[in-house]
């Protein structure tokens, strides 16, 4: 049993400061940028060694984009990403980025789309090692397959010969190949059946224990995040709305958006049907979000203050932060 006090065990690993990722919307003959999709718009958070931080929110809220910026599959528009003290937000492809890839890797959502169908499992899992110029690759691949619970015969086979759960194991083996200390898991179990989902969650937890990994865990399934994460960050239209330790967040969600999100989750108990909460309206466009709180147009507790200026993140409880004027 992991206790809350033990969470901050290894000192700071990652500090993200005012991260912004804007994607241009191109229009017209000259493909000029007519505007920007502000997918991530001023996100700051930090993570400790050995910690699991869950990012939750609806599709399009920017949670996956945060993950991709942190592993530098995307080069952020602005902001700093300090990894073990070094700012990796602006480093370019080359030696520095290659070094960074030894420390951070990603596990993808779609176990069907993320494995090259024309490569053998051995080539897929060993690719990172080849790039890093390592030796004894074959041996290491067998070892990695064993770690994720696949037989060594899997080496010479192709992705289509495996089920969804097995493919996700291959994706995890590939991520672990270069011995990283930090993994971004982007919806790693959402494409899997319930019984297989449990196997992969257990595997991720075992690996964390065994290799002292830190996880940035992106998921829309709140029950999965609740199980695996030490701390949860709730995002809405490019901004963090609330951040707290997992149990504190579920026991006492403070932001009206988090409250609305939680009330829309089915109860798993037919004798306690509460009628699902439905949020009126639709989220604002990330191209031109309104000033003030981005949830204001749908919030049941909206006030005049909510639509003025930037709403700051405030500490509304012990280590429990919310971006809402109710807690000013």
């Amino acid at each position, binding site marked *: 049993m992991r206790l809350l006090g033990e969470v901050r065990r290894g000192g700071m690993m990652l500090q993200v400061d005012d991260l912004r990722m804007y994607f241009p919307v191109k229009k017209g003959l000259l493909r000029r940028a007519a505007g920007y999709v502000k997918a991530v718009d001023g996100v700051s958070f930090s993570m400790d060694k050995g910690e699991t931080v869950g990012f939750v929110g*609806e599709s399009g809220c920017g949670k996956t984009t945060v993950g991709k910026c942190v592993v530098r599959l995307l080069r952020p528009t602005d902001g700093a990403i300090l990894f073990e003290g070094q700012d990796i937000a602006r480093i370019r492809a080359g030696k520095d980025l290659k070094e960074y890839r030894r420390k951070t890797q990603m596990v993808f959502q779609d176990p069907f789309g993320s494995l090259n169908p024309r490569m053998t499992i051995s080539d897929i899992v060993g690719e990172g090692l080849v790039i890093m110029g390592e030796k004894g690759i074959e041996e290491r691949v067998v070892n990695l397959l064993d770690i994720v619970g696949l037989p060594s015969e899997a080496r010479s086979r192709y992705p289509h010969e495996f089920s969804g759960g097995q493919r996700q194991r291959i994706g995890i083996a590939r991520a672990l190949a270069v011995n990283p200390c930090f993994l971004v898991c982007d919806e790693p179990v959402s494409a899997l*059946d*319930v019984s297989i989902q*449990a196997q992969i969650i257990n595997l991720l937890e075992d690996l964390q224990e065994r290799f002292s990994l830190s996880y940035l865990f992106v998921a829309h399934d709140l029950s999965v995040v609740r199980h695996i994460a030490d701390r949860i960050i709730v995002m809405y239209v490019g901004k963090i709305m609330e951040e707290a330790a997992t149990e504190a967040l579920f026991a006492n969600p403070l932001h009206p958006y988090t409250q609305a999100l939680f009330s*829309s989750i*089915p109860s*798993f108990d*037919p004798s306690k049907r509460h009628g699902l*909460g439905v949020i009126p309206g639709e989220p604002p466009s990330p191209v031109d979000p309104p000033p003030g709180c981005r949830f204001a147009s749908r919030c049941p507790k909206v006030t005049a203050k909510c639509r003025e200026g930037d709403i700051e993140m405030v500490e509304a409880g012990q280590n429990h932060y919310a971006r809402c004027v109710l807690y000013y």
Partner: protein
Amino acid sequence: MIVDEILKIEDLRTHFFTDEGIARAVDGVSLSVKKGRTLGLVGESGCGKSMTALSVLRLVPSPPGRIVGGRITLAGENVLSLPEIHMRSVRGKLASMIFQEPMTSLNPVFTVGNQVVEAVRIHTGAGRAEATRTAVEYLAKVGIPAAHERMSQYPHQLSGGMKQRVMIAMALCLRPALLIADEPTTALDVTIQAGILRLMKEMQAETGTAILLITHDLGVIAEMADEVAVMYAGKIVESGTSEVIFADFCHPYTEGLFKSLPGRTPRGRKLYTIAGTVPSALAFPDACRFHTRCPLAMELCRTKEPPLVDAGGGHRCACWVRCGGAA
């Protein structure tokens, strides 16, 4: 026979004849759905739940699929003996279906209005003006704001939740006796899901439609279903009212499904897992099909198929270990 039984499936067998062999995707399924009630059909991918639904509308891809046995009675009609030409009036009027992916279920080159109006006109023979009125009425009913303006929009201009609402409007505007919803909210966010589920309930209260709800999500089942049937490898292994299934499940497979839910396991504790993987339909095990993964399996389970036994109060379970004492 009970009058308000809208759908009755008896011993349905839908097999696929492929080059690699015969896949017994649905192999002896019996269930019934009553007027104004919701039956939740749960199971993992490949267990045959979608093929059961497609069989009701005779939409099983053929070849290689074929309904090789059983009986399906839909609002008094024997579906399997009807000539194909009559199936067009069964589909839509007696039973309509909502699919998992609203993105691919609408035709991208026609406006939303065009598609809903077409459905109404074909099935009711109404004129264009009248059909348009019906379409707008139902689009408004399913909570699409400015329904009249939305009629002239194309599917890509609508969000996923809105598209699924259009599909529901299209399915319900013909007032079918049975609505088949195959993973209607799986592709949607929980917040959108909540709206769609609430809408389905409201429409059911208003029209008395029976719903066959197919999903792998036990949370959705808990919220929606009056009765639940759990499918594994082409067979129903347990069925009963939602209250009974969620509180007093009996079959080891149902137990495994519930115990592996992350929401039901305390943090820091390992999740329960069902050993192995779902078998391929080409190679379902003999006797009890769950015996290869079952922690309780005994000799009888490997040699003889357990029947669905009544465990009292309409609760039925097929397991030699848990409820096979009588046999």
